């Protein structure tokens, strides 16, 4: 049973436009939600997070939205840049502080 789902394996966006990556989760007890970015041949790197008590967190071009009633979060990147092309993983953290990851979305930003 997948606790974290990223239903879009891939997304292509034109440079300068907005990229929206989506993630659904099943357990309402998660405390934190994190997005990681992964380039080929590298380990994932932390991008942005949000606490369960908030509904929005912004960091430069990256904004994460949390809809607790729908158990849904999304990552918005605007404007998108070719260097943003990577695999993006949604992850959740509960009381055990372990991370559970979604399957990832490959974002391709076209110049």
């Amino acid at each position, binding site marked *: 049973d997948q606790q974290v789902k990223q239903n879009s394996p891939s997304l292509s966006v034109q440079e300068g436009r907005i990229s929206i990556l989506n993630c659904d989760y099943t357990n309402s007890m998660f405390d934190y939600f994190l997005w990681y970015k992964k380039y080929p041949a590298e380990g994932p790197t932390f991008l942005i997070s949000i*606490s369960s008590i908030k509904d929005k967190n912004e960091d430069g071009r990256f904004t994460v939205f949390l809809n607790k009633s729908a158990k849904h979060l999304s990552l918005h990147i605007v404007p998108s840049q070719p260097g943003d092309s990577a695999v993006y993983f949604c992850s959740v953290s509960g009381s055990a502080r372990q991370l559970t990851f979604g399957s990832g979305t490959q974002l391709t930003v076209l110049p």
Partner: protein
Amino acid sequence: SAVISQKPSRDICQRGTSLTIQCQVDSQVTMMFWYRQQPGQSLTLIATANQGSEATYESGFVIDKFPISRPNLTFSTLTVSNMSPEDSSIYLCSVEDRGEKLPHEQYFGPGTRLTVT
């Protein structure tokens, strides 16, 4: 942030053999994690390794198949034993930032790409 290195970066192994993956961190950390990413799939936690205690394995992973050592606060090894083609994956180690800021981020090594033939 922590800088993590892994050895080897990749390997091709024959079924039935074992491979030991090393993870080195540039600072002392309490908790280290080992993950597996099978082709096209998510990162799955194999075990949590604390220095001075036995590793804690997640459901579906056992010590006989994935023995872990944690001899000090900067180093850990994961062995993939009696390998089969199903063990072909990227294996990653990570450490947790135990600073005051929440959530505690995890920093990942570059991964070891294992192919079992």
